[in-house]
């Protein structure tokens, strides 16, 4: 491991050393550059999606490396490289934000909507560490950048309806852009009843309702400097979680930021962006809609984060440097009150997250060194100081029931390194990279107290003495074009040391009625995760195209046991017909049998499935603007199925007809 770190460091240093090298011959191609930096950077132009009103969740699910874990019809949890939230860093425009639910009912992605965003940047493994430390990768949900192009008023209206679940969505956005000032506002409202799985089986508690509004304004006070402010308010109510024993009565977020932009002209420093931000989340779980529960309980949670970042882009000769200095302070608190079935007994109470304060500050430096016309060496380093503190004394005492030595503070120094070589030729792309990363345990892993996991039916206890989780990573990708045919392969391997996972604590009785027992977070000595995807596409004619992907994933601990939530063999095929005014796509999406499931973590074998979707779209232009119509059928054959990523194998949507209509006025 040490040798590998040395190798990466050497690569990094050597590329920095070349910075002095003066060679003005090669022209920098920034667009190309960005393409290779991140695994996928799809612009959130919603008119190119299958549905204009698709959720962030739907949107992310289309990405190759992302799989969404579903506990219901709302607030899916993204995974990258078969790794869930704790191993990822998910940010909103570089802002750290942490869910307030101890049961992961509120991934960060649930607190924004497509209308808020311009694009989503997904970085695999150590390529995703620009905003924080991670093992699996990073997702940054980018807010629209300020613009002062004087385009004037613009407005848009989106309407959507889907038959399955009687799902309705409405979006409205208004925008005024001047030369020195802009203001934009958008709102979106979504409501769904229970949906039906295949064969018209109603899935109880799959309803939700949510709205999201955002306001953004900016002022440009000189040619090089501008400032902008952004506020997002997101509120979901009556959200059902069919796969969990509880629902959510309120998930509310307020996300605010103030950004200063400095873009000097004709200097090595291309841009300097500084942001101050704040966000607060309230999450209230609710079991009042469930007719039968072993015991009634209230489980509210809160998460507040304050932070900043300062990010600079410097281009010098063949080097493109990115610097990011950032820091945040988070306060996570969650509690549980249970109401005894015997009314004479008092309420039972505990802190499930005993007011954990996290302070982080770190620096990220990346260099893209274009040392020849076709070759780039991209290296990055992130160094950070991470501190956890248990603010409630009772939190220390309650963890002492399980652990001999509980300190109220824990300091960590975290390192992330990566280096990748990229070769780009006209018909040929190749890249390989190495990385090393560390992460601190999450609040639940470190300090959670009796967090019930309905997946394996165990109560989980945090462990404040966990070591940093560390990963060595190797990735490889390759793409070859033969005229109209293209084939590519991408693959990542992770060797994770001190892999954090819950281990059964024998003889400890569960708190949750009916649970199998208690697990305390501990670490496997090491674990391996591997994935590989083969993508191909063939352009049959100007209008017809076909593309397909097959994927294979593998995950095992050093004890020989399968890791949980590892995707089985998967495939996807799409047949496209495109004209400027009309498009049609027929999709086949399927998974093989999940035979390498982790029975130790409550998984069982999920059967193979395949579904068919048909998506159609028309664009009409008129004097006022344009109208986009998107419609289609999902799960045409009304297949009843569930995937490995469906919590407790609850079934997914059956046949669904949808229609989205968008008007853009300008």
């Amino acid at each position, binding site marked *: 491991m040490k040798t590998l770190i040395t190798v990466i460091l050497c690569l990094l240093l050597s590329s920095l050393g070349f910075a002095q090298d003066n060679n003005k011959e090669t022209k920098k191609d920034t667009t190309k550059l960005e393409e290779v930096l991140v695994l996928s950077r799809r612009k959130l132009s919603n008119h190119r999606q299958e549905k204009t009103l698709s959720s962030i969740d739907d949107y992310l699910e289309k990405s190759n490396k992302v799989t969404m874990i579903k506990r219901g019809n709302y607030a899916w949890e993204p995974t990258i490289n078969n790794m869930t939230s704790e191993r990822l860093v998910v940010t909103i425009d570089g802002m750290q934000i942490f869910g307030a639910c101890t049961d992961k009912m509120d991934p960060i992605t649930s607190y924004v909507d497509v209308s808020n965003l311009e694009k989503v940047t997904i970085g695999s493994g150590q390529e995703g560490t620009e905003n924080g430390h991670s093992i699996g990768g990073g997702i940054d949900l980018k807010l629209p950048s300020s613009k002062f192009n004087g385009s004037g008023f613009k407005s848009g209206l989106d309407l959507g309806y889907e038959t399955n679940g009687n799902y309705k969505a409405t979006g409205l956005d208004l925008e005024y852009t001047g030369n020195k000032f802009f203001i934009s506002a958008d709102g979106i409202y979504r409501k769904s009843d229970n949906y039906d799985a295949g064969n018209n089986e109603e899935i109880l508690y799959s309803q939700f309702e949510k709205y999201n509004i955002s306001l953004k304004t900016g002022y440009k006070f000189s040619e090089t400097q501008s400032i902008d402010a952004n506020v997002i308010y997101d509120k979901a109510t009556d959200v059902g979680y069919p796969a969990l024993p509880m629902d959510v009565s309120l998930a509310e977020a307020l996300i605010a930021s103030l950004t200063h932009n400095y873009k000097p002209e004709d200097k090595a420093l291309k841009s300097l962006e500084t942001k101050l931000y704040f966000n607060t989340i309230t999450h209230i779980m609710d079991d009042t809609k469930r007719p039968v529960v*072993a015991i009634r309980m209230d489980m509210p949670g809160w998460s507040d984060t304050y932070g900043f970042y300062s990010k600079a882009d410097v281009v010098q000769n063949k080097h493109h440097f990115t610097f990011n200095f950032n820091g945040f302070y988070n306060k996570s608190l969650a509690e549980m009150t249970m109401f005894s079935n015997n009314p004479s007994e008092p*309420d039972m*109470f*505990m802190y499930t997250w005993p007011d954990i304060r996290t302070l982080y500050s770190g620096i990220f430096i990346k260099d893209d060194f274009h040392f020849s016309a076709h070759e780039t060496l991209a290296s990055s380093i992130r160094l950070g100081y991470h501190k956890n503190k248990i603010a409630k004394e*009772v939190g220390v*005492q309650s963890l002492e029931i399980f652990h001999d030595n509980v300190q109220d503070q824990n300091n960590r120094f975290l390192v992330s390194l990566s280096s990748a070589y990229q070769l780009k030729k006209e018909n040929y792309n190749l890249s390989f990279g190495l990385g090393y990363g560390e992460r601190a345990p999450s609040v639940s892993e470190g300090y959670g*107290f009796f967090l019930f996991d309905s997946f394996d039916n165990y109560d989980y206890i945090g462990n404040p003495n966990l070591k940093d989780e560390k990963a060595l990573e190797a990735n490889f990708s390759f793409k070859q074009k033969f005229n109209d045919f293209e084939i590519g392969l991408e693959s990542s391997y992770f060797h994770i040391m001190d892999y954090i996972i819950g281990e059964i*604590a024998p003889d400890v009785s*569960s708190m949750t009625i009916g649970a199998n027992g208690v697990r305390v977070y501990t670490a496997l000595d090491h674990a391996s995760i591997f994935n590989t995807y083969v993508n191909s596409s063939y352009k049959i004619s100007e209008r017809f195209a076909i593309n397909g992907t097959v994927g294979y994933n593998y995950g095992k601990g050093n004890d020989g046991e399968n890791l949980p939530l590892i995707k089985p063999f998967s495939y996807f095929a799409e047949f496209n017909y495109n004209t400027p005014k009309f498009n049609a796509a027929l999709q086949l999406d399927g998974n093989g049998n999940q035979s390498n499931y982790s029975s130790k973590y409550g998984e069982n074998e999920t059967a193979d499935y395949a579904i068919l979707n048909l998506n159609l779209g028309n664009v009409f232009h008129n004097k006022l603007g344009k109208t986009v119509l998107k419609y289609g059928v999902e799960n045409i054959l009304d297949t009843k199925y569930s995937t490995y990523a469906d919590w407790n194998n609850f079934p997914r949507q059956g046949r669904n007809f949808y229609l989205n209509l968008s008007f853009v006025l300008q």
Partner: protein
Amino acid sequence: MKLKYLLPIAFIALFFSCSTDNDDDAIVNETEGLELIQTIFNNNQTIELYNEKGMFETGYNLVSLRIKDNTTDSYIEDAILSWMPMMQMPTMEHSSPKSTISKALGKDTVYEGFIIYQMTNTDASGWSLTLNYTIDGTDYSVTETISVFQYENQNTSTFMGSDGTNYILALIEPKDPSIAVNEMKVGLFKMENMMTFPVVEDYTIALDPRMPGMGNHTSPNNTDLTYNNADNFYYADLSLTMTGYWKLNLKLMNANDDVLKGEDVTDENEASSLYLELEF
């Protein structure tokens, strides 16, 4: 010039030094944090009884006493005291486990001891307290009716062991439980006759705390109660994982490990017949 400044300073210093002296006298409130339970008048003396709550309740009561000389209006600092609580039942009378009375640690006028009331009548009646004390070689005695209220939970248990002996078990700690590993402290006494309740030494009491309101779950890392011959009480680690109502299931074993009272808690047997209760 200098004197002009020095004088006031000197006065202020004098003033503060005097006032601190006065404060010292006033601060001698040796019953701070305690509530008066009852005052017993006995001719020339007044006896004040205190505890934290200002009332006697069933179970363990730590009692502080003071004797005031009514003629000098000062508290006696060198009395020798003993006591005898007594409960009058329809057919008989009995006493209860109690400690001797000694001077409270670090105090001049306060004496301390404990009484464990194992039962009471619903209207708090039935008990009287006899105090015998000696001041300067003169013996005094006074008996007064007292009120003992029923504590809401079972913090004491009177039972007959399989050896035919009657025992009294009382919960002393945790007084103020928290979600933590609490120190549990229990007193165990044998009923030798109606008036004598000696401490039982060197037994073991197995501990199994449960929450009947929540599927009867237990908590980890509890230890059994063992005898401490320094203070004649039994001690254990009691883990409480949440607030609420806890049933502390117990099993009493003598020095030969014979079970005298109580059963294991199992899926079929929800609770032991020997238990104490805790609520927080």
